[in-house]
């Protein structure tokens, strides 16, 4: 079969940020009627390539050809008009408007300048229907869960560029991490829609950190590493091990190493003890004993109260009941400041909104918590500060290794590392990690997990929250199982504890 003409061709794409060369001469092509995965570690340049393609960033070099014609894409609007639509990880729609409006805004059907609401609702309903979805288009978008909002975003992009509702306008659909906060059924629904669109001839660019999903849905993939093209492969020709090796550029030995890792038995006396701690509407009263050097993992579905539990231990929320004792002394945890003073550090799951300051440099972000702990009147000497920052950049392998880079320009995994560095520098006794590996690639994930292991070996206690059971299982001495905002069981890790055993506990809601 002769290869068809690619609908999109990017050649020699270059994009530079101050101090960072994010893309150096990347080639990329996309064929109609295929689902194409863009793979690479964090910081490999995936997001940058997408933002160049969708007009959010301007090009520093290279050409983009669409349907054989060279195009210049200067803004998201121009990208849409050219037939390139994007659905981002954070749904970029207006929650205050109705579903129909979100699908049509910017190109509402009008007669003599007057919006034809009836026609718009009807066409929106038809479009939704044609795509096999059942969404009430008159309801406000905010009344639907994130997964449905994402589907609406796709419906919008399918409809973009045509007003007759036939969905022929979009040639290229870019899906940037659409599955990171969806559950399995929602992912299946998304995949069904993606296949339907593919069969209609739309070229889909799919970015996901879940390798299984890539292998389930994609036809072809392009792998990037450090801003350069590593290769383009048919998915069926490349197995997962091969892909990971391409992505990280080295063999898998270091990943295997962690699989065989034995939990160190060196767990000391009790460090932090919560008794009857609870908060109405947050989490039911629970007892938890975290020992020195112990990793306590929390397992449970999204919204089962994992974060709420952690926030109570950090004093970010006020408990209604119960006590916390640290080292045998009862302490009041009424504000994060108390917790920080007691040696507790908390890495939030929302690293963008609750942790990092994107406009400050890596150095400033890292030093923030230490400075706060010392008090603002006692600045850290410059030399000591630079030395500390350099040490943690090196220890955590933060890339680019430039303390003056702005955190907002780092990739997700590297931002996570900056946040970790900030807390590690204060040398906490207990480190709370809420979803530290979400949305970051496998290489960085492994590094962070290895770090947790070595920290606990050095005597630091860690409360580890992650959606992936295997991750929790691999690292934790004790696993707390949560269900419906209740700590239902605490299992001591051992050979008999398997992911399915934990799932059973979550499902049945009791200790078996």
């Amino acid at each position, binding site marked *: 079969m002769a290869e068809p003409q690619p609908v999109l061709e990017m050649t020699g794409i270059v994009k530079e940020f101050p101090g960072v060369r994010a893309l150096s001469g990347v080639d990329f092509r996309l064929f109609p009627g295929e689902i194409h995965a863009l793979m690479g570690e964090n910081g490999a340049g995936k997001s940058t390539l997408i933002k160049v393609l969708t007009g*959010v960033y301007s090009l520093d070099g290279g050409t983009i050809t669409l349907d054989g014609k060279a195009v210049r894409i200067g803004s998201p*609007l121009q990208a849409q008009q050219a037939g390139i639509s994007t659905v981002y990880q954070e*749904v970029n729609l207006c929650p*205050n*408007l109705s579903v129909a409006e979100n699908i049509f*805004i*910017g190109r509402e059907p009008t007669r003599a300048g007057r*919006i034809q609401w009836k026609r718009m609702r009807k066409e929106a309903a038809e479009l939704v229907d044609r795509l096999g979805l*059942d969404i009430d288009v008159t309801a406000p978008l905010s*009344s639907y869960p994130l997964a449905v909002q994402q589907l609406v975003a796709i419906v919008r992009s399918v409809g973009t560029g045509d007003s007759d509702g036939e969905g022929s306008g979009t040639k290229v659909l870019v899906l940037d991490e659409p599955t990171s906060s969806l559950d399995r059924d929602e992912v299946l629904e998304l995949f069904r829609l993606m296949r339907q669109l593919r069969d209609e001839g739309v070229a889909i660019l799919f970015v996901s950190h879940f390798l299984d999903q890539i292998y389930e849905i994609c036809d072809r993939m392009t792998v990037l590493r450090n801003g350069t093209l590593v290769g383009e492969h048919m998915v069926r020709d490349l197995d997962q091990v091969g892909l990971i090796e391409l992505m990280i550029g080295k063999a898998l030995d270091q990943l295997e190493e962690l699989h065989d890792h034995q939990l160190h038995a060196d767990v000391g006396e009790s460090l932090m003890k919560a008794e009857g701690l609870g908060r109405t509407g947050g989490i039911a009263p629970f007892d938890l004993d975290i020992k020195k050097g112990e990793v306590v993992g929390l397992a449970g579905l999204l919204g089962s109260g994992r974060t709420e539990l952690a926030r109570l231990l950090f004093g970010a929320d006020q408990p209604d009941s119960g006590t916390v004792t640290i080292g045998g002394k009862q302490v009041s945890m009424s504000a994060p400041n108390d917790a920080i003073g007691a040696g507790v550090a908390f890495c939030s799951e929302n690293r963008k909104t609750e942790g990092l300051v994107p406009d400050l440099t890596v150095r400033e972000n890292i030093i923030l918590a230490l400075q706060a702990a010392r008090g603002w009147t006692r600045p850290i000497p410059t030399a000591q500060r630079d030395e500390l920052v350099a040490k943690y950049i090196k220890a955590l392998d933060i890339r680019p290794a430039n303390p003056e880079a702005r955190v907002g320009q780092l990739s997700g995994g590297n931002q996570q590392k900056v946040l970790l560095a900030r807390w590690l520098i204060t040398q906490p006794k207990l480190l709370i990690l809420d979803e530290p590996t979400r949305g970051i690639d496998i290489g960085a994930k492994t590094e962070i997990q290895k770090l947790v292991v070595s920290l606990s070996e050095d005597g630091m206690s860690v409360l580890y929250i992650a959606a992936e059971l295997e991750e929790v299982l691999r690292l934790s001495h004790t696993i707390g199982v949560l269900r419906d905002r209740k700590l239902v069981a605490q299992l001591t890790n051992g050979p008999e504890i398997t992911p399915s055993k934990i799932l059973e506990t979550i499902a049945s809601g009791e200790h078996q």
Partner: protein
Amino acid sequence: MSTTTKTPAAPGAPERRTPSRSARLLGDRRLPVLVTAALFLAMYIAGLSRYQNYGFGDSQVFLNLFIDNGYLLVAAVGATFVIMSGGIDLSVGSVIGFTTMLTAWLVQDVGLPLLLVIPISLAVGAFGGFLMGYVIHNFEIQPFIVTLAGLFLFRGLCLVISKESIAIDDSEVSSLAQTRVPLGVGELSIGAVVALVVLAAAFYVLHYTRFGRRVYAIGGNEQSALLMGLPLGGTKIAVYTMSGFCSALAGLLFMLYIQSGDPLHAVGMELDAIAAVVIGGTLLTGGSGYVLGTLFGVLVLGLIKSIIQFEGTLSSWWTKIATGVLLCAFILIQRVMTTRKKT
């Protein structure tokens, strides 16, 4: 409406969020408007029962609400657009004051005909708004700061025209000011009619034009609106231009109502306008609200004034106290509603 996909959900799948009836009512964006309308009705009925013998039930008393607050309604409609888009305009009162001075000076001292003065002053107000919008968008400066500069600028310009107030005895102006439109049960002034026309036009623009929906979209989530390919800059500049236009129009109505220009006219009226918008149920964070709510907001403020007049013994400062209490209550309601939506 609760199911979202046609494929049957697998057993054990987390259930979709199905808002209960009461939660839906609480989440309904029309609720704040209904609350304000109900409040207005309750206050009116209370006034009726208390001052029945003093003619409170007279239909003209009701129509006077529009006559006495027409200028505020026009200014508040302009402010509604700005607040709906997620911004704020603090220059409203100063532009009103400046317009009274400009028109009084042009009519009285320069001797231009009213028909020429009206378009000039409207154009000046709109241009002032355009400039502020341009600075806000192109230099990415907080609207609060830019319009605060506008507040000082226009108030200062009043004093450039004259330090004294200018009384208007032009026959055209006074005849226009005294014209009454009969309504059967009573009559309305020209100012009140203009205000109602502006209200209707604003309603149409917000709900039936692409521009109006863009205002909602930008207020809902500016970043999203940009990524959805909506023209952010044009819309924002247009919103401030409209607010400037409305302020100038409000200034004209105020000049008609009071028949003078004074450098100290309408000091702080931007705050009245903002209060009316908020009491009318528009979220200060933008993206949610109705211009009809603004009408009720203005009417509630007007009714407080009327009731205090009827009471007779109360100082007019009670108007401010009542406004403060109401504003506080409505902001709390907004807060409860938005946090409910988030969880």
